């Protein structure tokens, strides 16, 4: 799976996710990536793209959950994303990248690794796997 989230200097957000799915999946199987709210979500607060085991992500609707925690509980992007990945998902099943309207970035995962990269306007940049 691949995905990208972005926010501009005015706080406009967008998210996109694309995948081939699971190795040896049944023909006709649909995963989380195209399901709005599960593998992909964006609103006026944040944008999220998810990767991992689609069935687990679908059950937990984790992209929307991150946004909902920010919306209803008022927590930060980092706190919401970390909680959803580490407390709501079985270990070894998922990771996500997210940005907020304020330009924050979160990239938590509970798998061994996640191919990921980010950059912010203040000059911070990161490319990492583990």
């Amino acid at each position, binding site marked *: 799976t*691949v995905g990208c989230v972005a926010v501009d200097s005015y706080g406009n*957000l*967008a998210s*996109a996710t*694309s995948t081939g799915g699971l*190795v*040896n999946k049944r023909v006709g199987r649909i995963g989380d990536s195209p399901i709005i709210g599960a593998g992909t*979500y964006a609103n006026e607060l944040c944008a999220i793209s998810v990767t991992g*085991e689609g069935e687990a992500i679908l059950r937990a609707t984790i992209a929307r959950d991150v946004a909902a925690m920010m919306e209803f509980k008022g927590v930060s992007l980092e706190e919401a994303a970390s909680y959803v990945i580490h407390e709501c998902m079985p270990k070894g099943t998922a990771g996500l990248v*997210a940005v907020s309207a304020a330009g924050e970035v979160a990239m938590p995962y509970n798998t061994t690794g996640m191919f990921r990269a980010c950059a912010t306007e203040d000059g911070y940049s990161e490319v990492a796997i583990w």
Partner: protein
Amino acid sequence: MGWAIALHGGAGDIPLSLTLGSRQPREEALHHCLQIGVEALKAKKPPLDVVELVVRELENIPQFNAGKGSVLTNKGTVEMEASIMDGRTKNCGAVSGLKTVVNAVSLARLVMEKTPHVYLAFHGAEEFAKEQGVETADSSHFITAENVERLKQAKEAHRVQIDYTQPLQNGTKEETSNTNGEVQLG
């Protein structure tokens, strides 16, 4: 407040012992795609354009599991899927079951912008792709030798696996598979 971008190329059981030959092209690809996204944001492109641009680039890189390099179904075919969402309007588009569309994410955006729907799948999505004149290719374009081998290993192990799952060693029992061979981690 300032612009920001984050991208991923998949999560999973990525071994710490990943060889340089496997790691380097992926790291270079991440740098490359990040740079494309950063330049687009600096050029004041809308975030929706930026995420589409970056995901298209990621889809074209065979080391990642989307577009060229998509993993294979149990029939040895590709069935690609994608979605895109605009946070300001909550407009969104999604596609599934694509066999010939080179950049699924762009078709998802066309679903969002050119139809009253959110989600098109399988032959309806392919038909829409033809109507819109998006780039298509024979299925062989998407299938790599590495993914043919991964499918073979997954079939031998009777399991369905997420990105970067390592092959089982001889004699290793798949503890999390049910009788259908599906990983039961959820």
